């Protein structure tokens, strides 16, 4: 277990370096000049040159990257060329939003997806067909389209939930939850259906296994068979899918944060990409990479917990 974690953390350093180099190179190819962006239409060439110098944009790419990486190793992600804020400040202010969104969405996907899938597998029949149909529709509707509809229906027409914006958890837990209901719903829809589908398939598979018959023959209660044995064994393949869904939620968050105007990392990175704010893009890139690695690590650890065969003694 410890070795797995250490290995993953070592790997994560390599991955962060590789992905930051990729982002760095790509972003340096993006046409446009941050200095020009900052100074606007009427700036003089002179002031632009001065700012470029200040920002270190005249130095060779390798040196720019080296400087950045050196800073990161000391915990300094640099400052936004655009707003002048330290990148950590910018990111840390937004991490709670994206994290709330993704964690809640993961919870919803895991609980509802698993529940629906299990129910559909056990009950089958009309309910199963109905769940199948619902999940297909959920899968087919684009999340941004659903998000627009949610705002129009639940926020503007019926006014149950706030249409846009975010309230901090520390400020007001109730409003925090309310402000996240629609975004989380829009973000989770696809994931719920995918996990439900996977759960249904693997639960059906497990239900056909010998040990389920043996358990029944032993007189174990059906509820216990389903909730303990089927769930536990069917959870393994679903866990992999859940991991993919959580990582995918990162992309979904970019769309959803934009529709619901949530001050999260998704809106930050779109803004930063548009304004050629390289330090911010790199910083978010590092956080995204870290997030993916942590999610995969957690999934691996959970996999170990759920599947005794891969458990490391």
């Amino acid at each position, binding site marked *: 277990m410890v070795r797995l974690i250490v290995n993953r953390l070592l*790997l*994560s350093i390599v*991955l962060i370096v*590789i*992905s930051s180099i*990729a*982002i760095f190179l*790509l*972003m340096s190819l*993006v*046409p*446009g000049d941050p200095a020009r962006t900052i100074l606007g239409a009427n700036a003089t060439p002179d002031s632009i040159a001065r700012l470029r110098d200040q920002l270190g944009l005249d130095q060779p790419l390798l040196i720019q990257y080296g400087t950045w990486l050196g800073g990161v190793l000391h915990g300094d992600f640099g400052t936004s060329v655009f707003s002048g804020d330290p990148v950590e400040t910018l990111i840390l202010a937004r991490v709670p939003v994206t994290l709330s969104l993704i964690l809640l969405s993961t919870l919803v996907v895991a609980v509802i997806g698993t529940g629906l899938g299990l129910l559909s597998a056990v009950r*089958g029949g009309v309910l199963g067909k109905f769940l199948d149909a619902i999940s*297909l*529709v959920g*899968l*087919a*509707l*684009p999340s*941004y*389209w659903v998000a*627009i*509809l949610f705002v*129009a229906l639940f926020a*503007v027409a019926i006014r149950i939930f706030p249409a846009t914006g975010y309230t901090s958890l520390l400020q007001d837990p109730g409003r925090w939850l309310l402000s996240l209901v629609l975004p989380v719903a829009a973000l989770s829809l696809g994931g719920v259906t995918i996990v439900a589908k996977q759960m249904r398939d693997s639960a059906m598979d497990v239900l056909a*296994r*010998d*040990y389920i*018959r*043996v*358990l*029944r*023959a*032993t*007189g*174990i*209660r*059906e509820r*216990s068979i389903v909730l303990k*044995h089927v769930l*536990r*064994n069917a959870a393994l393949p679903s866990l992999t899918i859940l991991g993919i869904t959580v990582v995918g939620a*990162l*992309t979904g968050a*970019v*769309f959803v944060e934009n529709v619901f105007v949530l001050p999260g990392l*998704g809106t930050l*990175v*779109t803004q930063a*990409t548009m304004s050629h704010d390289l330090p911010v*893009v790199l910083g*978010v*890139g590092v956080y*995204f*990479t870290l997030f*993916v690695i942590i999610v*995969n690590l957690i999934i691996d650890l959970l996999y170990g917990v759920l*599947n*005794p*065969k891969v458990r490391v003694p």
Partner: protein
Amino acid sequence: MNRSNGSRAMSAGLVRRVLRKPLGVVSGVVLILIVGASFAGQWIAPHDPLAQNLRIVRQGPSVAHLLGTDSLGRDVLSRLLFGGQESLSGVVVAVVAMLIIAIPLGILAGYVGGLLDRVILRVVDVLLSIPGTIITLAVLAIFNNNMFVAMVSVGVLASGAFIRVFRSAALSVRQELYIGAARVSGLSRVRIMANHVLPQIRGVLLVQVTLFSAATLGIQTGLAFLAFGPPPPSPTWGGMVAEAATIIQIDPWLLVPTGGVIALTTLALCLLGDAVRDANQERFTLAGLEGKPSAPQAGKSQVHTTGADRDDEARMAVTPGALLSVRGLTVGFGAEGRETTAIQRVDFDIHPGEVVGLVGESGSGKTVTALALLGLLGANGRVTGGSIRLSGEELVGMPHARLREVRGARIAMISQEPMVALDPSFRVGSQIAEAVRAHDRVSRADARARCEELLAAVRLDPAIARRYPHEISGGMAQRVAIAMALAGRPELLIADEPTTALDVTVQADILDLLRTVQEETQMAVILVSHDWGVVADLCSRAIVMYAGEVVERARVADVFAAPRHPYTTALLRSNPHGAEPGKPLPTIGGSVPAPQEWPVGCHFAARCPLATEACRVAPIDIVHLEGDRASRCIHIDELAEVRA
């Protein structure tokens, strides 16, 4: 047969199987319509997609504009048709990019393995960790919103996950025997991969391609929605949703056709993927079972209401003192009312403390009979006739909750494959304790104590309790299974071929254990087996089954002395325990007929040396002989001669 011919035939079958599924056909047709209409947009669009008419903006559907007009008065239908070209070709670009990378790398990693595999897997790790959103946004910024390049990058970034999928598919194909054969025959690796591995993973590939297409369509239209992609006035699906979104409050209709076409296409792709996946699975699970099931003949449930076997009251009566009385038990599988009969007119009694062998070849209906006793036929199967009485209490039609109380507590079962009979996710001890607690309301500590007691009863070290099923041997697993079965102190234990899957050396130990346990607990045992040696060793009586019917019932000693059914005779002869050294083992010619192929008359007639026309014309009734023997044969008298 030529291998490549074989695989081609297989994939042709795949297409056929997909076409047999209504949803597969419908989604395929919808997809073809959408793709076809989009690419034929030039010719079939009712209007120029760019022709604006500012005087008829934001109109709902009308005859002139079937899907209405947008905020510049352009025809929405025409714009959707033209927009489809861009969205769909974007999907194709991403899919092709993904396949170009994922197929070779996936197959190489899976088939070649070794260092190459490890290197490719590391590359996959990197691909999966790079934040795709950021890269795609950056790519769009660099290439000035060029959707082609963006979709290539989407394909490349997604290839990581698919390399894994194709790798594991190739890995499993590699382990299949015939690839080994191809290897021996000296085919080069590249040719093996191209000719054998690739066609084998075609099903997986098709499923992944349809699902990835659906996902990519979401990304492609999502990017267009965020105003990336070809500049206006070129129509794009995502761009049209974005436009609809900004005017949702004055013209909500526009959101319907624009989001609708994306949803419909995605839906069709998902359904097609499902159909392909199902068809692909059938290819493996139904191999050899293809062809229409013939109409049930003798298997029809009406049969036993006609003919000689109309059950007389006397025969249906419960034998006094019997623990279990099975009468006229008939079980069918399949849709209700259209069942295929698996066993029919099964009668027997089990007395308390008695060990009875249930003997027959595979397919004779032994296991179905055993499962029927526990009401564990599954969703697909049901008792269509007859009765099962346990100490006089009818089990057929008993409510689930009460049946559950019977299971384990009064009738328990151990199954053929001990290795798959235990839940791999839980420790052995926990599973035994669960069985204990299903019957006795005891504390956890008491359950643990009882668990140790049971482990001792099956001669296992109590330390085993902390192991997982994969950490113990088959013999140990069967002992655990017996312990679980004993947990409810059953009156009847059904042991379904308890030693078949075990090593020869272990078989005897398990049988010894069963005997000991039976003697200690004085429970009745039904030992399902095809092995006369085992039956002779443990059982006092034997019930012989063939093709869904009981053909003979007798004391074991009597059976060995003088079988009263030609099938029993044949079965005894082919028994390895009774074989004469140096002589080839006699076998019964032919095989057990499947339920659909049961003849009207004697089920064994086709393989029987004594069969006459009389055997074939009508169902054969069971004949009661001296003592409590019975046989389903009209040539009992000739048997003696044959044996001689």
